[in-house]
């Protein structure tokens, strides 16, 4: 009984693992562009939070302005690099 159960388990798992799968699911690898897009989203979220907290009365106006300027500058730098990378021809292995 024990041997039968063990043999069944062995055959079932062997078949599951090595059953010929011709087209395993693949994805392209993450790139610098993906990273920049994530950073862009993070900076936008930071801007939203800043805006919201200012409206909630957490920041004085001048502090808000200065923080917003810095975040906008950061966003602009990221967007510029994204534009450059998107304009560049895509390497064949990433298509």
């Amino acid at each position: 009984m024990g041997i039968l159960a063990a043999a069944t388990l062995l055959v079932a798992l062997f078949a599951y693992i090595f059953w010929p799968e011709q087209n395993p699911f693949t994805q392209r690898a993450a790139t610098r562009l993906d990273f920049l897009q994530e950073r862009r989203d993070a900076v936008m979220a930071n801007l939203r939070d800043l805006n919201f907290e200012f409206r909630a009365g957490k920041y004085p106006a001048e502090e808000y302005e200065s923080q917003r300027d810095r975040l906008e500058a950061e966003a602009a730098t990221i967007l510029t690099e994204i534009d450059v990378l998107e304009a560049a021809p895509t390497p064949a292995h990433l298509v």
Partner: protein
Amino acid sequence: MHPMPQFGSFALILALALSAYTLVAGSIGLFQLAYNRPGRVSPDRLVETARRAGIGTFIAVLCAAFALVWASFTNDFSVAYILHHTNRALNPAYKFSALWSGQEGSLLLWAFLLTAYGFVLRLRYRTDVRLFAYASTILAAVQLFFLALLNFAAPPFALWTGDPQPDGFGLNPLLQYPEMVIHPPMLYLGYVGFSVPFAFALGALMMRYPGEKWIRITRRWTLVTWLFLTVGISLGMHWAYAVLGWGGYWGWDPVENASFLPWLTATAFLHSVIMQEKRGMMKQWNVWLIFTTFMLTILGTLLTRSGIVSSVHAFAESSIGGWFTTFLCITFAVCLFTFFKQRKHLATEHKLEAIVSRESSFLFNNLVLLVLCFTVLFGTLFPVLSEYVQGSKVTMGAPFFNRVAVPIGLFLLFLTGVGPLLAWRATSLRSIRRNFVLPCIATVGSAIMLMAVGIRPWKVDALDQQGSIYSLVCFSIGAGVTVAIFTEFLRGVGVVRTQTGRNFISAALLLTRRNNRRYGGYLVHFGIVALFIGLAGAAFNQSHELEMGFGDSITIGNYKVICQSYTQDSNPNYDTDFALLDVYDGPKKITQMAPEKRFYTASQTTSTIVAIHSTPLRDLYVVFEGRNLETSKPIIKVFLNPLVSWIWIGVAIIIAGTFLGLAPQFKAALSTATAATPALDLQSVAGD
């Protein structure tokens, strides 16, 4: 022949082989992909078979766990483990929990949970195929270690070689308590779960993963695991409170400390990861926090199972200490090597701009948590260190830990209130004045009020003075933190109401749904406040002990406890001695309590069943200590423990807050709301 033990043993060998395959095939496939060197089998195919073998490992370990539970329920005393940890009269729930009541079984539970986490990870691989393949391969290495341990050092299906026994030796009476059916699995889910963030962090570092997606995945896994560990630790505290009969819930026992250490570093990570996500800072720090958390779980297991330190919870001294020490050293070496090889990948994107800022509050929070972690680790390992240096074991008792941990804990509570009020990057003096006025008023006001109602540390005995001061500080800071949390939330609700015209409840719901992570975090902080209030109540504990005959009474606080009767009873599993005590609050009888002392027949050991009458203000905690052999009257010890319920309420709030933080963000709901109310500016980005 014994079919189930045979099947279980085979399943464990198969699981070991499959784990080895997952590790080897996964490593080869990932190496080929990383260096673009395809072999005879395509690397993608190889990695896919490794993933499936990982899933197969879970199935095999599940079969082994089933075989052991089956052996327990069928009283198969040919298996040594079943003989030593069960008996025929044992309640079925405890027959099930026998799976984790001994060394071999609990290692099997560990392997089962580890492969179950791996199963979930491998099913979700489409989130990021390459990253998940790295994590799966690293996790397979951890699985391999535990399965090797189960196959060679602590086999759960080893057969009993002595004379056949008609009945088992029984389960440890301390484990025959309902919470023991869920406490160990919860604690293990927490402990074992930290392997997954570790696998992701190490994998992301090995593959030089570009971007922060891995940290978001890791944060969610860490939060789930942290939740399990929090629940596990809390259940352990409640078990200690209800079963051990000493009136407390935390004794700084090495095994308790072992579970607390990774909790501290994981808590630090859950805070500092926000800085990495928002500002791209503290990347190296975060990676090491995850590594450390994982290594602390292994160290904790080493302490629990090797007999290095003595504890009421620890398993008997065994030979597996060497296995864990070796594994710990290998893990540390791999982490160190990978970190130094890839550290340039972890360069920070921003620097700390000001000392008074949200970033610095996170940094402080992390440092304080790590100082606490180091202190607890030092105190726990002190017996080992002292034996090494001076040849005799010197144990650090609760006073040492309390002296250090209480002020650190209070400072953490203070930071809980301060952090969310500070601005990112830099906070001006005007901003501080604007945000801190109400919490400061609440802190000072509550201190004055508490002194007015009688908490006056200068008037109590010198012995209790420190506890009284700490509790006063705790209550006052708790009030300030609570006000800080609620004013933050109410400000947010105010903005939503102004912009949408919604009523208060609707605006509060929209705000919470929009940023459930932030407000889930605030709820957790509020739960921490409630928990600290409960802990601070310990400064005012009282106790009395008396030999009680019929009609004798003890008065403690407002309560009067009168002995109505004392008698004995028995069932097939145990004999019990208990007293029936009427409890009066003033002239009114409020309840009857029945503390017990049990004698378990199979294991020939005794156990205490405490009677507890709990209210939000205080617990009446009654212990049947035994009988006076001359008079045969019961000796009853009564404790009055103020505010203990707030510990459990605090834990429940922490759980609710964590669930809220884990819930998916309701962007769709907000989009609908935004469409319906064009004036809503929550979604808009300044400068858009």
